[in-house]
């Protein structure tokens, strides 16, 4: 959508910009909380240990870190009883065959019980707060409202079939509910859990180069750089300098990917010239492992200036931090201070997980600010939600090309389009998990996941919860395969990260 708007030189109305920010904003908040509690927490939280917790001590712990009202002894006792009944049913479902009791779990039973309670609360919370997507964009998942040139949500305070005060009131209620949970549950839990795992500030650093396209437009210029979370690049963990992003320096290799380029696989291609032609050369399934000196992945290997880049909340927060973003700097510094670590701790598994929390809080704080901007426009009787000038393809030039940048919750997302005679000639997406999960390139350079895993201690190769911690910290968009290879190159375990 942004790629086409860029190709055709379309400026969207201010209301559409704000609605897009609101939809993206609540998505960050909801998605990051789900990631923390439901896709990542069980790497740190031992559910079974929670059965041994003293509910009174759990209550004391919870009240010492937050004034969240669900923190009584009775409440935690009820959660523990529910958990007990579940475990005693003998049907453990999604919690069966996990790593409970593993020596890498460090939380006391009380912290585990508190986290289990919040795991369940977050499940209920997330389905509710994301109703903002339904108000603004029909439904979640897969909102149906994005248009080239604007949004499909009519805005009119005097209609019952448009965004009116009733809809705005619901958004306010849900945005407050979202922010309160982040402030009183997610952030305190994150800090409490992180304090037991500070050694993880020393693992999982990754490639040390960070790319952020930036997000939350503050004006309606196509591909504007006036963004609330800024655009930029950090090289070699050096926070003293932020480099600008030049999209022409992005290119993808297929040397180790199951694709082929007409001119051979040794050179990379810019997405406007990109080619996606499958060329599977791997073993016939079923197979035990893949040879990494050959092609071994369905992901291409994106590079910036021929260098592997990490993308995601950590990249966005580092670029904001190094750019002097006031609020991000305040929150990052306060998190570092509370954990008693320096900024170097950010380059780690723990830093990645903490940065996601920082971003959630700062984004949650902005939801009502953006809504306020929308209200101001409505007050001025600006109800425009779509720029119709180029809606009809007959108004388009014979040829056009464009690119659009976005920041998905899990990282930098770029689309490139070439249009000829009103139709797509080529369309390429370079998505966050191809940056982070990238296979090696023609020079043998490793991607962020692979580098991040080097040096991670694994207590029990058959139960590699430590590997999950680092891989999950990236919020991978896949049930992806990871091979752990010992120093002799002998594969000793195969892990499916789910």
């Amino acid at each position: 959508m942004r790629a086409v708007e860029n190709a055709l030189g379309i400026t969207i109305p201010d209301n559409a910009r704000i609605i897009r920010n609101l939809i993206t904003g609540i998505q960050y908040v909801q998605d990051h909380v789900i990631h923390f509690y439901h896709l990542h927490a069980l790497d740190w939280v031992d559910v079974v240990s929670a059965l041994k917790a003293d509910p009174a001590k759990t209550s004391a712990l919870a009240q010492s870190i937050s004034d969240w009202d669900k923190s009584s002894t009775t409440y935690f006792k009820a959660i523990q009883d529910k958990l007990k009944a579940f475990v005693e049913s003998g049907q453990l479902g999604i919690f069966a065959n996990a790593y409970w009791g593993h020596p890498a779990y460090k939380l006391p039973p009380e912290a585990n019980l508190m986290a289990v309670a919040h795991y369940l609360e977050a499940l209920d919370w997330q389905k509710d707060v994301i109703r903002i997507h339904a108000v603004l964009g029909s439904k979640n998942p897969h909102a149906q409202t994005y248009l080239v040139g604007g949004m499909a949500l009519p805005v009119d305070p005097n209609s019952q079939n448009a965004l009116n005060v009733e809809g705005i009131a619901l958004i306010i209620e849900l945005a407050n509910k979202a922010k309160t949970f982040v402030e009183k549950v997610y952030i305190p839990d994150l800090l409490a859990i992180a304090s037991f795992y500070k050694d993880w500030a020393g693992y999982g650093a990754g490639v040390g180069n960070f790319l952020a396209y930036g997000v939350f437009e503050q004006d309606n210029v196509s591909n504007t750089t006036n963004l609330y979370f800024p655009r930029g690049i950090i090289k070699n963990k050096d926070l003293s300098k932020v480099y600008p992003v030049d999209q022409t320096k992005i290119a993808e290799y297929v040397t180790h990917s199951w694709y082929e380029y007409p001119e051979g696989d040794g050179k990379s291609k810019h997405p406007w010239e990109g080619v996606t032609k499958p060329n599977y050369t791997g073993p016939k399934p079923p197979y035990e492992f893949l040879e990494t000196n050959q092609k071994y992945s369905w992901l291409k290997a994106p590079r910036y200036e021929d260098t592997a880049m990490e993308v995601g909340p950590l990249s966005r927060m580092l670029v904001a931090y190094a750019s002097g973003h006031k609020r991000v700097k305040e929150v990052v510094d306060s998190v570092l201070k509370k954990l008693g670590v320096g900024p170097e701790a950010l380059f780690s598994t723990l830093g990645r997980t903490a940065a996601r929390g920082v971003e959630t809080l700062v984004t949650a704080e902005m939801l009502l600010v953006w809504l306020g901007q929308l209200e101001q426009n409505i007050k001025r009787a600006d109800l425009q939600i779509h720029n119709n000038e180029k809606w009809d393809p007959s108004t388009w030039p014979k040829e056009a090309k464009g690119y659009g940048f976005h920041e998905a919750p899990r990282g930098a997302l770029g689309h490139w389009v070439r249009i000829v005679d009103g139709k797509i000639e080529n369309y390429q997406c370079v998505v966050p998990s191809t940056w982070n999960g990238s296979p090696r390139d023609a020079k043998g350079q490793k991607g962020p996941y692979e580098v991040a895993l080097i040096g991670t201690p694994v207590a029990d190769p058959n139960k590699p919860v430590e590997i999950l911690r680092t891989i999950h910290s990236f919020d991978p968009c896949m049930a992806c395969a990871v091979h752990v290879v010992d120093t002799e190159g002998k594969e000793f375990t195969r892990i499916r990260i789910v």
Partner: protein
Amino acid sequence: MKIPDEKELGFMEKLAQKGISRRDFMKFCTMMAATLALPASFAPKIAEAIEKSKRPSLVWLEFQDCAGNTESFLRASKPTVVEIVLNLLSVDYHETIMAPAGKQAEKSLDDVVKNQKGKYITVVEGAIPTKDGGVYCCIGGRSAVDIVKEVCGNAMATIAVGACAWDGGWPAASPNPTGAKGVKDVVSGITLINLPGCPMNVQNLTGVVVHLLTFGALPATDELGRPLFAYGERIHDHCERRAHFDAGQYVRQWGDEGHRLGWCLYEMGCKGPETFQNCPTIRWNDATNWPVGSGHGCIGCASPRFWDTMTPFYRRLPKVPGFGVEATADKIGLGLAAVTAAGVVAHGIARAVKGKGPEQGEKKE
């Protein structure tokens, strides 16, 4: 007096132990009866059926997918996903939300397939690539084709959720480079029901599961394998903007007066007149809204091969005559019948005709 042990406790008492009140439970059963288009008097029967059963195992497979149906599953509100996972079912394998990984995760799946043969429910999300030996989607070194045949082949029933698991969806859109197909075209001879949509609406999934638990069989389907309770009627016939269609009041441009007043989106490409699903009645996200309700047309995501057949999304449906006044509604209905794809239930058309209320007992074509 003897104190009853755990086994002798009734289901309600067990639920109470888990913190679920009888009132909440009955509310859920009544809601399910409504979703399934059953009289409210069925609620006790549903309750009785659920009371008796050990939580049935459910395994959830993902192939060529975006996890949109998983996300939809997490949005469940009646019952919530917490209630489903802890009380209603035993969700034994679900790659996105399960705690174990790797070999331990594979063990969870193996345990169900081997130990509960013929007793578990499989949910499939995503398309299955069949070209070139299935190399385009492998999990743990096994092809999706191989996995789906084994897991669905041993299940009591399979529920294909979302457009992709139904007929290949987006991966199967022309030119379908990976030979992507839906479950129905990959595994034969299984008990299968389909919940197309992009994604499926989770209320329909819980409806199917409860129907299965209550009656021991899947609900009745149309010839495309979709349950009638959810896909039996046309969106157009239950659309809150239908009166504007009949009155010839159409949105002409995004943001125009008609758009702000909630007029019909047909001119903007709405596929409601050709799409069969219960979106207008059950809506989305705890009944908060649905596409037409927020000013965007239906894209026909529950229709066969919708990426090929329902695009361009913003071009109005062809061959539908007139932007008529009520007098021409007859013609509009007839015109639609002519373009409705073979096999698509067209029984809603009579309802497009004003004043023919009594004809609502139509049969499928």
